[in-house]
């Protein structure tokens, strides 16, 4: 066999191996969800805005004030008679799994500013029996919370025909430390949340290498 043939086979083999490794890496990485923009040749991923929020202890905070953490977030309201207790139960599972992992924080945003005051949120957190240093319960102006939900890709709308006037989805969203949306699960489905554990673990493994 000529040297040219050997070279050709070598090049094809190396190219194939690179492709294989490249594909494998792509499959392992969590996707960035949402629209991306190209600015001056740089790819800008969708980012959840850093709104000023008020927590259950009346502290005004921004997500960035918690530093380089991974965040799990949902949208709920306390008097919700439909999906919220189930979603919060699954948030509680996530809390129990990551309560000793300082890289993870949980956020629950109320969409009912009229009834869920700071005092009510504080009492709710207390009766849920969670550490509010780890799991924050946020409120803000209604427009801000609804816009924030939109950026988290969680559907929240006023709907007079829905129970208590709100229609919203029960998704639990995973944010990386740069506030990019990297995954989600259906908070009403325990199996979806069980599968979500490995998504969170994967993000932690890649974010804190």
């Amino acid at each position, binding site marked *: 066999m000529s040297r040219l043939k050997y070279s050709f086979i070598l090049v094809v083999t190396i190219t194939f191996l690179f492709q294989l490794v490249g594909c494998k890496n792509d499959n392992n990485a969590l996707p960035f969800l949402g629209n991306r923009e190209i600015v001056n040749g740089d790819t800008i991923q969708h980012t959840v805005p850093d709104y000023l929020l008020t927590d259950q202890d009346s502290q005004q905070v921004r997500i960035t004030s918690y530093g380089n953490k991974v965040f799990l977030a949902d949208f709920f309201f306390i008097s919700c*008679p439909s999906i919220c*207790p*189930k979603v919060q139960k699954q948030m509680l599972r996530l809390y129990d799994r990551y309560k000793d992992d300082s890289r993870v924080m949980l956020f629950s945003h109320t969409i009912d500013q009229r009834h869920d005051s700071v005092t*009510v949120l504080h009492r709710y957190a207390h*009766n849920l*029996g969670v550490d509010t240093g780890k799991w924050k319960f946020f409120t803000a102006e209604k427009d801000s919370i609804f816009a924030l939900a939109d950026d988290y890709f969680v559907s929240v709308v006023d709907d007079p025909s829905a129970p208590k006037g709100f229609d919203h989805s029960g998704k639990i969203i995973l944010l990386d430390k740069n506030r990019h949306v990297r995954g989600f699960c259906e908070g009403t489905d325990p199996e979806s949340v069980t599968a979500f554990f490995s998504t969170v673990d994967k993000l932690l493994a890649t974010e804190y290498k």
Partner: protein
Amino acid sequence: MPQNTNSLIGFNRKPLQISFRSLFYLFIGIILCSYSCHSNPYRQGHELYKVHCESCHMADGSGLGKLIPSLDSSGLFRSTPECLICLIRHGIVKNELTGQQMPGNEILNDVEMANLVNYLRQEYAGETKAVTTDEVKTCLATCKAEE
């Protein structure tokens, strides 16, 4: 000295033979028996629980922290059924400790209410004495009188 005791009583016994088929039927019988012993017979009650109660009390009745107490720990099912019937019908306006509400259910008819109450009492208190629809009717009339 006779060697075979069977011959003393006048017949020859064959050694006990248990076929695989007999064992199989025995096994199925045990499974069915244990299932019927432990399963809750109030199927409509269970379906009603799924529709009207499960979203807050969860499929396994475990609730949510102190906000929605676990049904397993509730003594309500072991007390007289009247309290439970009234609670389901009229709910809790506001729990003083947690601030939580429990919405009342106005749409269950007497038969459905009896089935739901019987399901709950059987499931969470092992209470096998069934509540009748007449008892539900009488109880709800008393509840109304107390309002």
